[in-house]
């Protein structure tokens, strides 16, 4: 058997598995392109599967929130429907989120959902409603049953779910992908604060390949740099922006 035939078989089998699981193109949901070639190479079908649960974990800084907002803006832009952000507190600040591409009125927030049980209920309800482009839930932990319920609700409603959790907490037991986002010192000329710079790690991804990148967010979008020290590797337009 030649290498090409093997690859074909593997691809077909993956396709079948995806169809059984109701994920990916086979489910008619498609994927979300991130606009980052380096990252897309690690993802199944070159994008983040829609209508599924993805977990983003981060520390006390705003890096994970920023990454989540950037994903949301991409989800919302291709969809037109609003996104719902379920908050543990009442902190989200729209003028700041707008920097990542979220326009006024496109975000609905529900604040002060303190208990995880309430949060999981709200996320599940929102996913089933089907009138949203995406739902963000700030959870501490979700056991296997709860995570699975969310995945089923996301598939049923055709809505993408992002779970935002802290590094100190358990997070979701299962998710299509798990990202870990932490802040990195920004590149700058030393006179002021530069553009946000994150270490984004794809810790787990079904049908994907775990990897880590350094991403820089500029007003024009994001870009990946190979290593944090490799400033010369920045695209020209990005270098102009930071």
């Amino acid at each position, binding site marked *: 058997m030649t290498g090409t035939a093997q690859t074909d078989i593997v691809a077909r089998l993956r396709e079948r598995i995806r169809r059984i699981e109701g994920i990916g193109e086979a489910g008619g949901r498609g994927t979300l392109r991130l606009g980052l070639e380096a990252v897309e190479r690690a993802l199944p079908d070159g994008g983040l599967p829609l209508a599924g649960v993805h977990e983003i974990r981060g*520390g*006390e*800084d*705003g*890096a994970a*929130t*920023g*990454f989540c*907002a950037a994903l949301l803006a991409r989800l919302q832009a291709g969809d*037109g*429907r*609003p996104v*719902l952000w379920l908050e543990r507190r*009442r*902190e*989200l*600040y*729209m*003028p*700041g*989120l*707008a*920097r*990542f591409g979220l*326009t*006024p*009125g496109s*975000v*609905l*927030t*529900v*604040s*002060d*959902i303190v208990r995880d049980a*309430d949060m999981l*209920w*709200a996320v599940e*309800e*929102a996913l089933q*409603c*089907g*009138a*949203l482009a995406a739902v963000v839930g700030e959870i501490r932990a979700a056991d296997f049953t709860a995570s699975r319920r969310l995945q089923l609700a996301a598939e049923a409603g055709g809505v993408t779910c992002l779970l935002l959790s802290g590094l100190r907490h358990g997070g979701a037991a299962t998710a299509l992908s798990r990202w870990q986002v*932490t*802040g*990195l*010192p*920004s590149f*700058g000329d*030393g*006179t*002021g*604060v*530069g553009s*946000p*710079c*994150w270490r984004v790690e794809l810790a787990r991804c079904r049908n994907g390949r775990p990897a880590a990148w350094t991403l820089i*967010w500029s007003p024009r979008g994001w870009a990946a740099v190979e290593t944090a020290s490799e400033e010369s590797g920045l695209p020209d337009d990005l270098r102009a922006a930071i």
Partner: protein
Amino acid sequence: MAGKGKRRFLCVWFPWLVTERLARREPELARQVTAAIEEQRGRLVLAAVNRRAQHAGLTPGMVLADARAVQPVLQTRFVNRAADRASLVRLANWATRYTPWAGLADENSLFLDISGCAHLFGGEAALADDLVRRLAGFGLTPLVGIADTPGAAWAACRARQEEGTILAPFESLTDAMTALKDFPLPTLRLSPDVLDSLTGFGLRTLGALYPLERRALTERFGAEPVERLDQALGVTDEPISPIAPVPPHQAREAFAEAIATREAIDGALRLLLDALCRSLAESGEGARRLVLACHRADGSVCRLRLGTSRASRWPAPLFRLFAERLDEIDPGFGIEVMALAATRTEPLAAAQADWRAKDGGGAGLAELVDRLGNRFGFGRIARPRPHQSWLPERAVEEAQPFAAAGGTNWPAGRERPLRLLAPPEPVEAMAPVPDDPPVLFRRRGKAYRVRSADGPERLEGEWWLKDEPPRDYYMVEDEEGRRYWLYRQGLYEPGTAPRWFLHGVFA
């Protein structure tokens, strides 16, 4: 009375309300000669008496000393007008089990507009029996009158001693006059001094007033007798003021046997929602606030309130909203009447805004907002939009989920954090050079070494908020790449330590 013949009023009079209320707290008072007393012009007089006291010849208004001379064993308690009124208000609330139009008539009687709802309870006589039986269960003695006008109903319950009266619908004014002819004059609801002067002239019945010239009557006794007579006969309308605002749309179900199971409550709620939604559809409205009142067998009422984010008149989603909270209803000894009312409505053909029309997803989203709102409170759901203000915490307006989107975007060109702490968290900061960013700050015992910073950006409250000092904001990045928004409150003044706050977190 053509055209008004459909309206029917019930008046329920509690002749012993004050003393029966006392007897509820001290049951032995019911078996004794009891009077409620109050001070009038420096003397103690009887304000109300119980039945035994009346039989013993005591009447309200008597001076206590005289009463004691007649009845040395008289039990007295001070009257509490506020509490008496409060108990009458509670009774009026209770009476909304029969009709939403229940109001106070005077200090010891209630009016109920029972137009078109007596059939739910098996007719007027059955309704009156039911009312009397239940009130008797509370230890009260009610007398009931039913007639075409509130005035006639008021007269009917007082016309005969110890017995209520149902007056047949009046066919004409003559008919009404005949029906009320022999009623004693005190049943006309006159103030005591007017009544005194009329009886002083030897007038004993309502019929005695008919032949008198109205102008002469008014000149001599004021407008009251003519006015009250016209109201009783139905010549002029008398509005009754209900105890609670009467919702324009409501439905009620009375059960032959009290229900207590969830299935029965569900079933009744579906019937009520169907009826209410039909009524809403007829007037082209939708409900924003709904109240389900469950009248329990023991007379207490359990209310469940819920709201919707936009007008709705579809039974199925409304039922789902209620279903999540029906567990809050404790049926107790059973629910006898369930009443559902739309307390706030809006025209349903309201302008469709933004995404609601797209993909037909609007209905689903509205339903979701309702479910979240009823669980967490509608105040927690917002669709933030820009607001003109320099202060960061005021630059966002938490609009209603379905309010029209603000056309403007967020101000560009200014770095703003992703999360804003409310209230700002006080931190210790070291800024060796005035008006320079801090080099270090401490938050919750942890030190953050500042690697780079931007600022200051001076933000001040609007001129009408003069009491707030200006703030100098700095965006700082610590050695690990975490970015924070700090501000120093007030201007630098030599000798005083500046106060620093952490206000936000950047990506």
